[in-house]
């Protein structure tokens, strides 16, 4: 019994390819699915092991079994705007320690929280660019945040995939990193005010609502169902979609 146990433990130990992968994910925080597959392939190649096929989900499950003790996880999610899939290195325990090591000031945090709250509570799931900027005026600190600083923060958050800028619509919405990393927090803090997509059953902030039956859908989920143009009906109540 002990022999089997100790061998199982050894078998589940992470290899060099896994250590390289998790180190890179921890450094880059969020990568697209395509990048993740390229990365694990490269890690396998560099560490001189061979697998018959590259099964990314299996490797991630293995890594997560070790990360979970440290309240960390590599979690998968989808961008609500582009439908691109992402893998995100997330922290599952919001404690004093993780707060200490953030790159942003408390005021920056307050601005971010205010922004995403607006996006979450709005039905469309986005905030107009001008409104996003003026939101920095209503922060509770004595020292006012300049528009220059707010603009720089917005740019930075977009580059880190916390937020996403929709240039055509002149608006900002939650980026894949915010959705993946803050998903559980959003559910628990705003439970009554948010809905899930009726098709994929995951949290839906940015999406379309059927006026008849009041259900909400991700744009890409709806597109997947409605293949032909004539078939513009609500997948739930079959009412014609304007």
């Amino acid at each position, binding site marked *: 019994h002990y022999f089997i146990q100790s061998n199982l433990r050894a078998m589940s130990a992470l290899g060099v390819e896994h250590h*390289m992968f998790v*180190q890179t994910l921890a450094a880059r925080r969020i990568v697209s699915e395509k990048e993740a597959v390229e990365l694990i392939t490269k890690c396998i190649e560099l560490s001189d092991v061979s697998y018959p096929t590259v099964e990314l989900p299996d490797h991630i499950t293995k890594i997560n079994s070790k990360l979970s*003790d*440290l309240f960390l996880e590599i979690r998968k999610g989808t961008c609500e705007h582009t439908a691109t899939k992402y893998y995100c290195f997330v922290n599952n325990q919001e404690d004093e320690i993780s707060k*200490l090591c953030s790159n942003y000031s408390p005021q920056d945090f307050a601005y971010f929280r205010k922004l995403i709250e607006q996006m979450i509570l709005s039905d469309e799931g986005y905030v107009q660019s001008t409104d996003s900027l003026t939101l920095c005026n209503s922060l509770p600190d004595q020292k006012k945040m300049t528009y220059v600083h707010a603009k720089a923060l917005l740019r930075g958050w977009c580059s880190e995939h916390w937020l996403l800028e929709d240039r055509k619509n002149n608006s900002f919405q939650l980026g894949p990193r915010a959705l993946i990393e803050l998903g559980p927090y959003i559910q628990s803090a705003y439970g009554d005010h948010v809905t899930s997509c009726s098709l994929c059953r995951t949290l839906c902030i940015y999406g379309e609502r059927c006026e008849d039956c009041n259900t909400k859908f991700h744009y890409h989920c709806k597109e997947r169902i409605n293949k032909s143009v004539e078939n513009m009906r609500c997948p739930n109540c079959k009412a014609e979609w304007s």
Partner: protein
Amino acid sequence: YFIQSNLRFEMSQQNKRLKTNGLDDSQAGPSNANVSQLTPDARALARSEQVAAQMSGTDLKKLEIDLARYLLFADKKNIPTKKQDIFKHVLKDNPRLLPKVLEGARKYLKRTFNYSVCEVDYNKNRYYLLRNNVELPELQLLTRPAHSHSQLALLTIILSMIHMANNALDEKDLWETLKILGIDRTESHVDFGETEKLLNEFVKQTYIEKQKVTTTNGLVVQLKWGMRAYHEVRMSDILQFVASIYDVDKDIWKKQFSSHDGAMDIS
């Protein structure tokens, strides 16, 4: 442009870690020798094991995980962790537990990331730095964001200059040489932005130290290697780097082979 061409070489050298005269994973733990012959660290570990024995396994495990997370997140910011930081943020009520909790934290970091925790004594402080046990140069290119590659190249150049100046480089000389490379002290650089600000970042991350020294020219600011430079970079690699630029054999620089006067020994 020689910064870019030497980047790959520089990256492979940056990856080689330096063994300090501090402790790392392999040296942790009490020896079987006579108690009176135990090192101070071994005595501290024995003491902490006594205190830990009075705790519940769950409570101890929580502290080990907290410390592992703290060391991991702090490393991301590239500011070295001091013993005092750990007491303040992780072991608030139980400072004596540090050796035992560190032992546990080491295990988590080793099996999850293959990081070791190095204890380095420097300037009367004890620091805790993570060391990457995966010695593959390509990994550095993967884990560091693209914009930081050129910053590391600049750091290597500056460390090389300091080393060739026997660990006492006048700040004035640094800027004069950088100007030749197209890096101006006051003008914004296409890769580095405000280079002086970046230099101060390197100082904050303890790669470089600034010291005011009285010389024949009066009071000047001199640059030396910092603790993190000794931890991450081998002098022989820096010599190899400089030799490759001048296309000579590094043996011609006898003086620069020896360790910096008054600084930490390299093994």
